[in-house]
Every structure is written in C-alpha cells, then in structure tokens.
C-alpha cells in the first residue's frame, strides 16, 4: 500500500466516522464518560433563567448587580484504544474483514474523544504489544492512529488478551476510558480483567464474522488457522461438526460477556454484517 493509498483510506474513514461522531455519538459519548466533577471557572452577570441557586452573593454584593457562578465539567479524560491485530483479524467473509470494521470503530471512538477534548492513545497487540501510541489530543493525532491501524503490519499472529490487560494496567496510572477491541478468540483473561476493570472504565468490543458463528456447508475444506498456522481438513458438511463449532462460538461469546460483566465493565458484540453504530449507541444510552 502506497502512502497515497493509505492517506486516501484514512481520509475515507475520517469522513465516514467523523460525521458519525459529530452527529450521533458526540453527545452520547460525552454524557457516557463523565469527568471527575464540576469545578468553578468564572462568574458572569445573571441572565434571565439562570438558576438562583448559582448566584454568587459575595460578588453580587460588591457590584450590586447579580452574578452567577459558572461551573465547568472537569474533563481531560484519557481514552486508550487497545486493538487486537492478531492473525484472526484478517478474516472476513461479508465484504469487510474484522480488522476493517475495528478500524472504523476505533476511528469513530477516537474522533468522539477529540471532540470532547479527551486524549486518545492506541495499543496494537497480538501476543505481544506491537505498537503503543501514548494518549494525546488533536485531530492529527487521531489521523495518525487511523493510519497506523490501516498500515501496521504485526510481527506476531497469536492473541494474548491477558497480556495486553496487564500492559494497560501498568502504563496508565490514572483512571482512563479503555476500549478493548478484539474478536476474543482467546481464553483465560477473566482474572486479569477483574483487576483492570476495577481501575479503569473498561469496555470490551467483540467483533465477529457470521461464519464464525454459523459455519455453512462448504464441503470438505482444507483450512489454515490464521493465528496458529495449523492446517486441517474440515468436513463442514458434517452437522455434528457444525454444531460443535456453533457451540464453541457461543461458549466463547458467553465467556467474553460474563468475564467483562463480572469485572464491572461494559460489553458490545457486533457481527461484521451488523451495525456497530446501533450497538454502540445502545450501549452508551444504557450507560448514560
């Protein structure tokens, strides 16, 4: 991919997701993730309709006209987007790869954050931390994040969710908004999740392809695992096999939901054919 292509793609994603975050998400996001409280910022002359409870009597007495105190929400939040770029992300059967959808989700979240003057950081991980961009403000920073998402070539293919959770725990000292976006083809992250979930405002977003949920009859297929590189002949015509496959997926999804909810974190799960906007709006509304 040439730089020109990347920039074109970045621009495309920007246009698509910025509009989303401006018009749909902005408010929801803002109200969903609140700052630590209200701090006093200034006094201004009383205007009709102001809450009388906010009148600053001292200033009013000195100037002999009513003044009200203005409070501002203390924001300056930090958002960290932990994105799984292991091998399994490069799978997709319906128009787009899981990774492409994740890129859009990340872009939407990042734009929403900058709009609210929050800092955005990015962690790309497989079974190692592939890339870490420390949280910063600004549109250009968001564009960089998008560019990395489009262009970054991971060194490893496997997934280690527990590892990235530990990394997040270590790197963020203050409480932050953390989105963990992955397909969660992984196990044994419940314990770490509990610890991280207590410290940060954590949300897990699981992206999956419809085929991962229900395997259609593709005949006798030679398959290669994107993560392990393991190869096998899979008889997808076999009903029992397809059932096992579906059960395993549901078990995985269930584990994902349960372990996040147990740690007090939020969960969103979305198919690559589904609308992540809808799912995320629902989620934010439920939080708000």
């Amino acid at each position: 991919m040439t730089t020109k292509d990347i920039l074109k793609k970045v621009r495309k994603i920007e246009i698509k997701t910025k509009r989303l975050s401006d018009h749909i998400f902005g408010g929801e996001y803002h109200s969903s993730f609140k700052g630590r409280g209200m701090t006093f910022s200034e006094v201004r002359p009383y205007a009709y309709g102001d809450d009388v409870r906010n009148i600053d009597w001292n200033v009013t007495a000195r100037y002999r006209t009513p003044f009200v105190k203005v409070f501002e929400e203390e924001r300056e939040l930090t958002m960290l987007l932990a994105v799984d770029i292991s091998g399994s992300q490069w799978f997709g059967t319906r128009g787009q790869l899981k990774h492409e959808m994740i890129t859009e989700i990340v872009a939407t979240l990042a734009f929403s954050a900058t709009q609210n003057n929050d800092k955005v950081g990015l962690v790309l991980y497989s079974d190692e931390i592939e890339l870490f961009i420390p949280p910063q403000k600004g549109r250009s920073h968001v564009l960089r994040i998008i560019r990395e998402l489009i262009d970054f070539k991971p060194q490893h293919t496997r997934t280690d969710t527990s590892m990235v959770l530990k990394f997040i725990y270590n790197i963020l000292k203050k409480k932050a908004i953390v989105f963990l976006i992955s397909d969660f083809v992984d196990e044994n992250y419940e314990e770490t999740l509990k610890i991280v979930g207590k410290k940060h405002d954590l949300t897990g977003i699981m992206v999956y392809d419809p085929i991962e949920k229900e395997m259609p009859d593709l005949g006798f297929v030679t398959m290669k695992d994107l993560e392990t590189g393991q190869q096998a002949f899979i008889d997808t015509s076999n009903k029992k096999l397809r059932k096992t496959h579906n059960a395993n997926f549901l078990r995985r999804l269930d584990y994902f939901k349960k372990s996040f909810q147990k740690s007090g974190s939020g969960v969103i799960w979305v198919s690559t054919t589904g609308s992540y906007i809808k799912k995320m709006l629902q989620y934010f509304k439920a939080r708000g």
Partner: protein
Amino acid sequence: MKLLDHYELYTPYALLLLLLVPVLAIWLYRNRYNERAKFLYSDIASFGSFKTIKNKMLPLLTGLVLISLALISLGIARPRSVDVTAKTKKTKGIDIMLAVDVSASMLARDLKPNRLEALKKTAINFIKKRPNDRFGVVLYAGEAFTQVPITSDQRVVMQAIRKINFNQLFNQLEQGTAIGMGLATAVNRLKDSKAKSKVIILMTDGVNNTGEIDPNTALELAKEFGIKVYTIGLGTNGYAPTPVGLRPDGSFVYQNAKVEIDENLLKKIAKETGGRYFRATDNRKLNKIYKEIDKLEKTEIKETKYYNYKELYRPYVLIAIGLIFLTGLIRYTWMKSFV
C-alpha cells in the same frame, strides 16, 4: 526377467518405480495440505478435534492412488506369459539324404531284430535329435526310388521310415544291391539344395551287384555337387543268418551266410567326398555311428524361438485407472470443497 516358468517381466527396471511409491507417500503426507485451495480461518480449534468419515476416508483415498501407481508400475514392467514354440530356422540347417538299402539281405538277423528294423529305429532317433535339418529318404535295392524328397517336415520323414516294409518293397523292387543307383538318386535329390552342407548317409550291407549306374559314377556326381557322403556298412564280421530262399508261403529261409560288404568302395566314396566310413556290426555300434555323424555334422543352430507373448499389463493398468477415477470421483463429488 523370468519369474515363473511362463511369466516374465519385459522391463523389470520399471519395478524401481515401486520404490518411488513410499517416497511419494511420505511426500504426499508432508504436503497433504498443499494440494488444494486453503480457507484461511480465524479459529480452527472451534471445530473440535473429532474426525468425520471424510477425514477418515482421506488417507484411504490417497492410499488408493498410491496403490494404483504401484499397479501402473507393475503394468510398465510389462508382465507377460510366454509360450515358447521353439521353432528353428530350418533353411539354415543342413540337408541330409538317407539312402537305405532294402535288399533282402537287410533282413539278416545279426542286428536285432534285423538289420532293417535296427536301422529304422536308429535313423528315427537321429532325425529327432536334429530338428533343424532337412531330411529325405531314398530306398534302393536292385533299383532306387525316392521315398521322401528333402523336406523340413520331419514328421513325414519319420513316418516314412517307420513305414518301410520289406515285404511290400520286395514285390515292388528288383532284387539286388545297386549302391550306385541309391547314391545317384540321393545326389539327384540334393543337387538343387541351397543348404550350406549337403550330406548323404549311405547304408548298405552288400556289394554293388546290379544297377544302371556305377557307384563310381555316382561318386563323381556327389563330388560334383559338393555332397558329403557318410557310408555305413551293416553286418557282423563273418557269418550271419541271412535269407537265402523263399518258402511257398512267402516266408524266408534263413541260412548262415558270409557277410560281404564292399568296404573298399564305401571307404572310397566316403574319403573322396569328405565323409567317413563306418562299420556297424551290432545295434550298439550302429547307434554310436549315428551319434558320431551327429557330432560331425554340427550345424550352427540358429534357433528362432517363437515366443507367443500374452501381455498381462492390461488388468493392472485398468484397475489402476479405475481406482484413480474412483478416487477422483469421490474427491470431486462426495468430498468436494466449495471454497
């Protein structure tokens, strides 16, 4: 390569291809995933680890292909059954004329049961041993005639010799011993022969006493045509029971008579034509003589064996093709992939 008596492999080196089969098996096993388009999937483990029938069938199908390759290798080795009919090229052999004296004295009993019968037996054995020569038979007494002209059909010759019947001939032929006539007739039969070597085996038990052709003339003729003459004198030394008269009922009166053989003449004939003279005093001696002649007249045997081959590769190849077709059919119908 001979396998059993009747089976052989025409190109046994093709069996080396069989060694390739296990190599191929290992290679196929190592590259078992490379043969088809792969479906890159995110999580194979989610299918569990159980094997369906098709998984179990797969090595079987590969096995069938390997078996058919082995069968094809066998087919390339060309197994065939051999039916050897050892026909020899008869034109390459030599031509032998047997000139047999059938005068009454041949009934003398110094050889058992008599000279003629003993001669017949040995002559037949002689012919049997020389399958690549051509034979002819001339009979003579007071006159000579050709019983069998030179022929490669030895059965006819042997049959003719077996059928020499004195009583019959006795009435047909003039009496006497016309060695010259016998020899000349034999020479006549051989003169147009294109064989490399022409031989007359002249057998007699007496002295030339009649005939229109003098033995010396006949000898000149033989020399002229380059014919070798082996001469055999039949009869013991001294006296032998010889038929001397005829009873009214047709049977012979035997009396011991002195055996008279014109050995000088026979020796002369033999010497001048490059043959040899033998004297057969009894059956054993006669046998020996024939063996001797057999040795002397070695022909370079150019045996053309007629091999009647029946190629047996067909079932192997057909089964192999069938198996390959079957595996292909299974693979692209029942075990096909839509990816």
